Structure formats: structure tokens, C-alpha cells
């Protein structure tokens, strides 16, 4: 396995890469004399990207990927045949059933934490062994190890409801530069554009002054803080040039109809746009999945609103030739209890739940892992968060057994060293 590239490998600006250096570059790629569009296409083929869909609160596996109809805990819904013979999902996911030929399910996920706050962190950080450091979330880790690519856009973008901002704490010991640029409701950051009364020349002068002050500030502090501060302004400058990216009304109506105009639909459509533009890691979060009460009416309302845009983005990525580059993951911090409580709800359940994946490095149309007839136990090898990380790194072409972070010269594993990948879903 060749060593993974580092961020330095991606620091060539797009203009230099595609302009006067095109010929040399084409030669370096072994392409001989090639046109600019061909080079662009080749660059796209080499992208490694992630779409990470997070259903915060815990989507029920029994009303989605691992239904158990007509069993004591099965609930009211039926299961339906998918496009892959032998694989059935809940009737609430008909569109995902239609694209099952692109998907891989792991039904044997079994993690350690049944609380939201701790569970979200543990799962998204890969539940590493405690080492006295704060590990990065998967998005920050990919931003570091895969790098920003050729887009000029931030490598880790988080599309979410409510507020946005720069979420530096996602980066843990990697340093704030690898935090998430959160787009609240998918909108660009506030005050992104230069105010009307400020000329470009004045703005440039102000930035020169800012850089000077930043240099003095950074001189007496850890390198990461200076880098992060300057990086935020570089990001803003790039986003200013790409402001049209956020205006989904400019997209064909059929795109908007396909994904739906509800929050999760719009946010997944924006995610597709961001991935098209080359953003390395796009996380899309939906809240409100913690259905302790009136769960079945809740699922009847919620699940179709995930199903429609999720199937749309899978098909869309496939149709655009992007599914071979983009690793897609859809999951939560846990599943939901088979036992139905008195409020006709399902409670938190890390014991036996499901994750859905697709795309780069992932087999198509497969299921790995099993639960028992009632969904109360995993009956095959359980997969913990560390195992998921091993699987995802492998899918991205990174060997987690030989690749390490360097935390101030301390090597740290990028996935829990006692876990292994789910080989059945790896292409």
C-alpha cells in the first residue's frame, strides 16, 4: 500500500496546476499531451471524499435497515424487498430499497455508550484507547490525512440546522485548523461578503495589516493557533468567490424536487454541490431522531424524509460518476431498543444496530453481520466504532495499521489498534 499523501502534496494552487504547468503535470501523470478538461477529469478521478450523514438522536434500525416484522418487538410496519434479492428493509425506506444495489449495510454494529453526549463523541472519534489526548472527529481526521484536495474550499464542511461557525474542537489534538466549517441551515457564514462601503483596495490594506498583526501574535505561540487564524481568513476569501454554491434555487427544479425542499433534502443537495466542487469531507446532520415517545408515528414522519434525499444523493453521485470517489456513511450514535416502552417509544440501544455505507472502496449491494430474530442481539462478530474506522480508512485507501498521527512527535494510531475492518463490505 503506497504511503498516504500529506497536505503538502495538495498545496499547489489550482491555477498553477491547471495553467502553465499543465503540460508538465500531464507528463508527470503519464498522460502525454492532454487537454484541460481531460486533466480536470483526471484530477476528479483521484479525489477521495466522504459524505457523512448523521441522524442525531438515533434512527431506529428496526424501522430502517434491519426490520423484524411480525416479531414481539417488530412494531407495526412491514418489510419490503429491495433491488437486491434477499435484502429487505423497512417499508418506510422504499427509495433506499430502490438503490440498494449501491449500498452496503452492517447490521452487527455494537457500541459501548447509550448516552447521546458521550456516544456521539465516542462514535465519531472512533472510540480510541484513552491516551490523555482528545482524538479528532472523523471529519477532522480525513481533513488531515486526505487533505483539502484541489478545490480551494475547506476540507471539512458541516451542513447542519440552526447555527453555523467554525467548530475547532472537532479537531482534537490535530489543532484548530482541522476543525469544521459549519454552515447553519446550509447558508454561507454571516458577513462573508465585503460590505458595500468597503472598496477592494481598502479591504486588501486591512488584510495586510491583519497578516502583520497575526505574525506578531503567532511568534510567541504554538504554530497551530497562528495557522488556524490565518486559515479562517483564507477560507473566507475562497468562499467569497464561491458564494453561488449556496444558492440552490439556481439548480434545476428537478434536482430540488428529487431531494425535497425540507431541511434534510436541501442540506443533502448542498452536500452534493460541495462534493462536486471538491470538498473532501461533508457532514450533514439532522436532529430530532430521539423517538422515546410515539415512536412509530415519529418514524412514519421522519424516515421518509431521510429516505428520499438519501436515495437521491446516492443515485445522483452515481449518475455523475462520483460514487467511486465518495465514501458515503449514514448512521447515528446508536440504534433504538427493540422493547417498546409505555409511551409506544423506543429507547437508546447501542447493543445491536445498523450503519449504511456506499461508494469509494465499498462493495455494492451487500449486508454484513446479523442480529437474532427479534433484533435483541448481534449473532455474528460485533462491530464497534473502532471497527467502523478501520473499514472507512481502508475504503479511503489508507492503511490504519501503518498510518499514524503525529501529535507533537507522539505517534498515535488512527483507529483503535485492537479492532479490524469489516472485510465483507470492502471492495
Amino acid at each position, binding site marked *: 500500500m503506497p504511503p498516504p499523501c500529506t497536505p503538502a502534496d495538495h498545496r499547489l494552487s489550482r491555477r498553477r496546476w491547471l495553467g502553465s504547468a499543465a503540460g508538465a503535470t500531464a507528463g508527470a501523470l503519464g498522460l502525454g499531451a492532454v487537454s484541460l478538461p481531460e486533466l480536470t477529469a483526471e484530477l476528479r478521478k483521484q479525489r477521495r471524499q466522504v459524505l457523512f450523514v448523521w441522524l442525531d438522536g438515533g434512527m431506529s434500525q428496526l424501522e430502517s435497515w434491519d426490520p423484524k416484522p411480525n416479531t*414481539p418487538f417488530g412494531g*407495526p*410496519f*412491514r418489510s419490503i424487498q429491495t433491488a437486491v434479492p434477499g435484502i429487505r428493509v423497512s*417499508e418506510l425506506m422504499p427509495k433506499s430499497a430502490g438503490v440498494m444495489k449501491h449500498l452496503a449495510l452492517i447490521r452487527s454494529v455494537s457500541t459501548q455508550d447509550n448516552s447521546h453526549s458521550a456516544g456521539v463523541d465516542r462514535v465519531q472519534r472512533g472510540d480510541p484507547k484513552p491516551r490523555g489526548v482528545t482524538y479528532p472527529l472523523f471529519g477532522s481526521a480525513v481533513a488531515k490525512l486526505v487533505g483539502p484536495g484541489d478545490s480551494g474550499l475547506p476540507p471539512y464542511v458541516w451542513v447542519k440546522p440552526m447555527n453555523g461557525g467554525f467548530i475547532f474542537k472537532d479537531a482534537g489534538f490535530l489543532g484548530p485548523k482541522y476543525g469544521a466549517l459549519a454552515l447553519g441551515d446550509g447558508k454561507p457564514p454571516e458577513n462573508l461578503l465585503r460590505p458595500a462601503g468597503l472598496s477592494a483596495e481598502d479591504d486588501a490594506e486591512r488584510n495586510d495589516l491583519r497578516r502583520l498583526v497575526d505574525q506578531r501574535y503567532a511568534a510567541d505561540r504554538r504554530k497551530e493557533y497562528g495557522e488556524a487564524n490565518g486559515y479562517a481568513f483564507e477560507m473566507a476569501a475562497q468562499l467569497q468567490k464561491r458564494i453561488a454554491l449556496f444558492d440552490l434555487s439556481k439548480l434545476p427544479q428537478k434536482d430540488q424536487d428529487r431531494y425535497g425542499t425540507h431541511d434534510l433534502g436541501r442540506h443533502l443537495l448542498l452536500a452534493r454541490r460541495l462534493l462536486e466542487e471538491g470538498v473532501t469531507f461533508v457532514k450533514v446532520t439532522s436532529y*430530532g431522531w430521539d423517538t422515546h415517545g410515539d415512536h412509530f408515528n*415519529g418514524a412514519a*414522519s421522519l424516515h421518509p424524509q431521510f429516505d428520499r434525499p438519501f436515495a437521491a444523493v446516492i443515485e445522483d453521485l452515481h449518475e455523475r460518476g462520483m460514487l467511486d470517489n465518495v465514501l458515503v456513511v449514514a448512521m447515528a450514535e446508536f440504534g433504538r431498543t427493540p422493547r417498546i416502552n*409505555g409511551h409506544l417509544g423506543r429507547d437508546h440501544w447501542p*447493543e445491536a444496530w445498523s450503519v449504511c455505507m456506499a461508494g469509494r472502496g465499498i462493495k455494492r449491494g451487500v449486508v454484513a453481520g446479523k442480529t437474532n430474530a427479534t433484533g435483541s442481539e448481534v449473532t455474528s462478530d460485533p462491530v464497534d466504532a473502532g471497527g467502523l474506522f478501520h473499514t472507512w480508512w481502508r475504503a479511503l485507501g489508507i492503511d490504519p495499521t501503518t498510518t499514524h498521527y503525529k501529535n507533537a512527535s507522539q505517534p498515535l494510531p488512527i483507529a483503535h489498534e485492537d479492532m479490524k475492518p469489516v472485510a465483507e463490505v470492502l471492495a
Partner: protein
Amino acid sequence: MLQPKPKTPPADPTKPAELGKPIDPPAQILRVRFAPDGTLLAAACSDGLVRRWDVTADAPADLPPLAGHNGWVTGLAFGKDVLFSADSWGRVSAWNPAAKDAKPLWTVEAAHDGWVRTVALAPDGTTLATCGKDGFVRLWNANDGTKRSDVATVADTLSVAFGADGKTVLAGDLFGLVREFEVAGGKVLRTFEAKELHKHDRLQNVGGARCLLFDAAGKTLLVAGAEPKTGGFVQCTPLLIAFDRASGKRLWQWKGANDNEGYITDLAWHPDGYVVASASGQPGQGKVFFLKPGEAVPFFVSPKPNVHSVALSPDGTRMAAALTNANSSGNGKVKGKGGEYPANVSPVQFWKVPKAS
């Protein structure tokens, strides 16, 4: 010095009295109903069975359950010598409720695409109405299950009832709208709006017009559910709204005390002129209560964990309610006494209900 044992106060003869311990069927129950002659109680269960008990003696006696449904049995309605049931996979069946080894009199396998929310029988017993998650209200010939008509309502329809004269059918939806349709022709005659029974929270539509009931004269329409505060966890305050049938105007409403109390899950009209209701909220919270029309405070409340249905015998002297066992909730793998992973169940409690003074 020994303290004298406090005397148990005598039961208040004007209040309902519990009749023994609950019976303990091994499933959760979504609906209970008495037969018109008061001799039978039927229960729509989460394991696809319609359970039955002979309730002529003091102690209810098990009868063989009616089998053949899938998913949850969600709707029950008695006619004269007939019981109609519906399930969450779309099937509707008719049965002879007293037959020991009952086979369906008729069955429509796909009466709806999926979840049939409930069923109602016209006063003359000739027409059965069903409503479903698929947004349809359908009318069927009660004697053979042939379809009479379709009325599409656009939204998930949670409740259905016939008008007193049987010429109209009313359907309550997820958005708190209750539409009244002509039985012949399906024309929408009017809409009763109870929009506070619905809330759109984040991605979720929460609530809906869960129960419909007419008073004995058929002049007052009761629409019940809850006023939602949040989806997800679902916090909502029970809410009952009374409309004048003729004018469509609101007459009065009753609202619970807080948003842990949950939904009103079932309604019955007592022959003495008051509402009997059940409610289920956060795990462990629930009650059966009696409310005189227009009054702010129920005159009888029996707190019970998560009551999913309540039924009155035709003469109003007995009441049955489907409760929930204690400790029904919990994150992670809760273990039973034998180390097993237990399912929750619905004990059925009976009460003797005195006549109003």
C-alpha cells in the same frame, strides 16, 4: 404503645371501583371494546391477535384469540353479532365474536396500503369505514367486505367516525383537521379545524386528531389528541376540543396540566352524559378520567401507567382499560428476572362504574 391500625376508609360509592387485579395478556394492547350485549371484551394486540374474554362472570375468562392479522391489530368495532378488526399491514376482517374457534367471516387483505389506523361502523350496521396512513378513508359493505367507495384525504388519517344519522363520515388527520364527507358520493361537507393538535417540529409532523366521538345525541363532536410541544421524545399536553356539529363552532375544550401527560388515546361516551377518556404520556404517566362537558376539572381520575385504550360496557356499569406494566422504559439492555430481554405488556383493569346521582 402500639398505634391503632388506621382504618381503611370505606369506598366512595359514587366513584368507580376497581374490580380485582388486572388480567395479564402477554402483549401490548392498542384498543379494547365491549360487545354490544356486554358479554365479551375484545382487545387489539401488538402480536397480531385479537384477544377475547367472556366477561359475564366476575372473573373474565379467556376465549381463544382470533388469529390471522399481521403487525399490530389497530382497529376494533363491534356490530350486532359481528366484530370488525384491522391491522397495521392493511388487512380488515370480520368475525363472529362469540364463536369458540373463529375463522373470519370475510377478509380484505389489502384494504389499505399498510397501517389501517382505525375502523368505525355506521349506526345501521351496514357500512364499515376504515382510515389509514395511506391517506384514504374507505367505505365497505359490512356484510361481505366489498368496497363501496374511496375518499382520499391527502394526509395520514388517524381517526374515523360516522355521524349519528349514518349519512356522513368524519375523518381526523395528522394536521388536526376533521373533514366530514357524504357517505354517498364522498363530497366534503365541512372541515372542523383543531390545528393546535399538530406541530411541525424540525423534520417531524407531531400529533394529529387521534380520537373522534359524538355525544349520545350526535350534536356535539369531540376531537382529541394533544397539543405537542416537541417531536422526537414527544412532549405534549392532552387536549380535547368539543364542536357544535350543526354550526361547526367550538363549544368548549379541556387541556391537561403539563406536557409530560401525553396524548388522549381513547374516548367513550357514558350514558349518564359525560366523557370517559384515557391518556398516555412519558413512560409511567397516564390515566383514566371522567369529564362532564364544559368543565375544567375531571370529576374522576385514576392515574395508571400509559393507558392506551378505555371501553365502557353498553349500560355504562363497567369499564375496562389497557394499561402498561411498570418500568416499561430504559436505555440499553434491561434484563428481566430470569435474565431475559422482556417485552412490555398491557394489563387490563376493570372497574365497576356507579350510575350518576
